[in-house]
């Protein structure tokens, strides 16, 4: 395991996870919590923050300890570390609000298996200095939270007519119940991805000025 020598901390260290390698929109990781708990913005935010906390704490610890952890038990150790922080945040959320805890359900505990966290610990934190690891984890967490919010906001606005529980349109509004149901999760994320793909294609088409090739065969 070669420790990266460049210690330069750049904006990219942080922003990578925010956009270019957004864990949800680009890497399609951690799909389960992404879809399961985003039926309201507050749940999305809570889940995002909880995950960020675990990312951050485990990233820091892994980065600190990486050089002492034998190769053979690396992953097992990471899992134990992650599980520890997840258990902590699980209790913390219970202490903050039972309602929130009930809304997020088992998905807090399922952060343990969220591929983002193990992936980051393994691919980044173990190879970088603590400061960098923390910053990168922060970026990833922010990117994850941002993506969850994107979903949570759409689903809450359409599904309940509110944002963070604040009623937007008054009592006449007809909520789109589907948005709070499972299919809504799939469809909203699918729609976001479609939108991004569409923008990307448009940009590409503008860049390479080819004959107006039609999308639909």
């Amino acid at each position, binding site marked *: 395991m070669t420790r990266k020598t460049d210690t330069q901390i750049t904006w990219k260290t942080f922003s990578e996870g925010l956009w270019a390698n957004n864990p949800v929109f680009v890497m399609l990781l951690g799909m389960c919590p992404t879809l399961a708990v985003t039926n309201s913005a507050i749940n999305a935010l809570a889940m995002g923050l909880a995950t960020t906390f675990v990312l951050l704490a485990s990233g820091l610890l892994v980065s600190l300890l990486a050089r002492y952890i034998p*190769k*053979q038990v*690396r992953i097992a150790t990471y899992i134990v570390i992650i599980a520890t922080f997840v258990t*902590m945040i699980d*209790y913390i959320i*219970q202490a903050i609000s*039972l309602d929130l805890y009930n809304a997020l359900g088992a998905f807090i505990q399922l952060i343990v298996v969220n591929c983002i966290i193990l992936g980051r610990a393994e691919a980044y934190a173990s190879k970088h200095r603590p400061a960098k690891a923390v910053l990168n984890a922060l970026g990833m967490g922010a990117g994850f939270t941002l993506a969850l919010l994107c979903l949570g906001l759409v689903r809450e606005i359409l599904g309940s007519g509110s944002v963070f529980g604040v009623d937007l349109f008054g009592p006449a509004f007809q909520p789109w*119940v589907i948005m709070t*149901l499972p299919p809504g999760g799939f469809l909203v994320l699918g729609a976001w991805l479609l939108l991004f793909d569409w923008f990307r294609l448009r940009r590409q088409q503008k860049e390479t000025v080819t004959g107006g090739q039609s999308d639909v065969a």
Partner: protein
Amino acid sequence: MNEAQQAMQPPRASSTLMMIVLNGIAMLAGFLVVMTSQLTAPRIAENQRIAIEQAVSKVIPGATRHREFHLGKDGLRSEPGADTTTIYAGYDDQDHLLGVAARAAAQGYADMIYLLYGYDPTCQCIRGIKVLKFAETPGLGDKITHDAAFQSNFDALDARLAPDGQGLAHAIAKVKHGTKQHDWEIDAISGATISSTAVGKALNQSAQALLPQLLPHLQELRATEKRP
């Protein structure tokens, strides 16, 4: 993922350093977890208590405090046992027993519906329900939590025991919307018949089983009245 596989294999290089590190991490993990659980335990217990108190005061109108009991075949206990049911006795400021709250559950439209209901021994009726946990459809099934007309079913839902004391005189049952005639019937929410049925079913099942067991011990609950 391949490394996961590798990592699980018995360590080849068994160095003392490795043992130290592993033990260290395990200890650190244990420490962190125990610490958190210790630190948060009081808050969590308080949260739970508040939640229960709120629920109890909703289903037993007027109750300001409650005590938890565990009802088993051999009577009331203060510690839960293998076959006990948890009940909450609700008291007013003067420590008069106002009613007893218990949990009930039945399969609803999407998943189980969990309820707390309050039984008033004076009128021998159910005085209120609170839905604790459910996954019914917003706009339809979730009306059981807030639909005023539906909730009014439980202002005084007849739960008298049959003369032999072995069950309810009249089974609690939901009827089609707008056809309620008796005090022991629940007027279903139109468009959410299934959720309404589930509520009825849960209450009936729980009351049929619990009340015959509970009533002989009412005195004991009252006996605690004078105690602070």
